[in-house]
């Protein structure tokens, strides 16, 4: 059958055609396009890697920023707390001091008042005694000597104190 009989001429020409086609296409088309495909592949890979790296960097920077901000916030809070505390203690101290000063002053004033009072009472007593001696001497018409005078006063004062 003609259909199934191999023809040497056709076989020969097919082989020649195919091999020539392969050589020409390899030079003209497959070489450049395969090169380009490989290049494109590496380029896309590199671009993706770069994008990944950039994203990572951005994320890191963001995290860093967040951290710095957090730290700053914390510091501010600390500072606020500290100053609040200091203010509180200072206030407390001032109040305490004022209180103690006030009470000290009060105490002093009280002491002074009582001292003055005692002094005044003493003076009054002294005056009263002198006055009474004066009145008494006038009454007895005789001027007591200085010494007698003193004795009488001391006696009467002693008696008063005893009372």
């Amino acid at each position, binding site marked *: 059958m*003609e*259909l*199934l*009989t*191999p*023809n*040497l*001429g*056709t*076989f*020969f*020409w*097919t*082989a020649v*055609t*195919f*091999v*020539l*086609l*392969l050589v*020409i*296409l*390899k030079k*003209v*088309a*497959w*070489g*450049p*396009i*395969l*090169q*380009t*495909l*490989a*290049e*494109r592949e590496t*380029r896309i890979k590199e671009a993706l890697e770069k994008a990944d790296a950039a994203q990572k960097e951005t994320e890191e920077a963001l995290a860093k920023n967040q951290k710095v901000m957090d730290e700053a916030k914390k510091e501010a809070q600390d500072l606020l707390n500290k100053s609040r505390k200091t203010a509180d203690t200072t206030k407390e101290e001032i109040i305490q001091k004022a209180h103690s000063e006030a009470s000290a002053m009060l105490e002093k004033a009280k002491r002074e008042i009582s001292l003055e009072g005692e002094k005044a009472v003493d003076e009054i007593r002294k005056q009263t005694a002198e006055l009474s001696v004066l009145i008494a001497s006038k009454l007895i018409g005789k001027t007591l000597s200085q010494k007698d005078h003193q004795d009488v006063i001391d006696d009467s004062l002693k008696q008063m104190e005893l009372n």
Partner: protein
Amino acid sequence: MILTQTLSWFLAGGGVQEGHSVEQQGSSEPEKLGSEFIMHHITDHKVFDLQVFGIDISITKHILIMWIVSAMMILLFGILFRKPKMVPSGLANFFELIIEYLDQEIMKPFLGDHSRKYAPFLLTAFFFVLFCNLLGLVPGSATATSNISVTAALAVITFGMVIMTGIKYHGLVGYCKGLIPPGLPIFILPIMIPVEILGLFTKHFALAIRLFANMVAGHVVVFAFLMIIFTFKSWAIGGTTLLFLLFVNLLEVLIGLIQAYIFTILSAVFIGMSIHQEH
């Protein structure tokens, strides 16, 4: 499409008309002429006589078709890929897609790191077979891949590639040894050695026959449907057959694509097998 071709043959006094005019002579007459018509369209024809040292190397129609296909491929891929752009567009994009698909689906899986070296051969084989198959569907042309000599030559080239690859990676002795699976008992060897050697040839023989048979079968069906139209000469049957014809023709496009793919993938598998003999 094919109608014009048939019509010209018909007007030139084709077999069936004569067969019908002399119907009384016997019903076997149109059948014989019909098969002749089919054979005429499938077999090759000499275009230019050429003899070298007594060997007939005449230029035939199929060879001319192959040259047309080759010229088309060189022009098309030369223009598209000689100075490839990093960002492809249009037709270059389309063909790059196919090349990338073949690279990912055929070359990388079966050839691995060696894929780059065999890519030109596999790409040429794929597009050559594909374009021959598809050009065969154009009226007035012929299918070079439905010629057993053509497919045999392609299979022999693949066979040569396989043998050369094997010898390159394992040496002549190593390759021959590697053909027989290791670890076999000695008494099986007298059977296994012929089987393996035969298998080596059968694989490539099948490669040639598969492509040839598929392309012939498709065209026989196409022309057989055409014969039905001219045998019955009825509008109803002719119309229905025309639909079938269209369907078969579209199927032929698919088969042309599938056969080109199969030829390429099997070539890659055979080359891969001779690189990694242990599998």
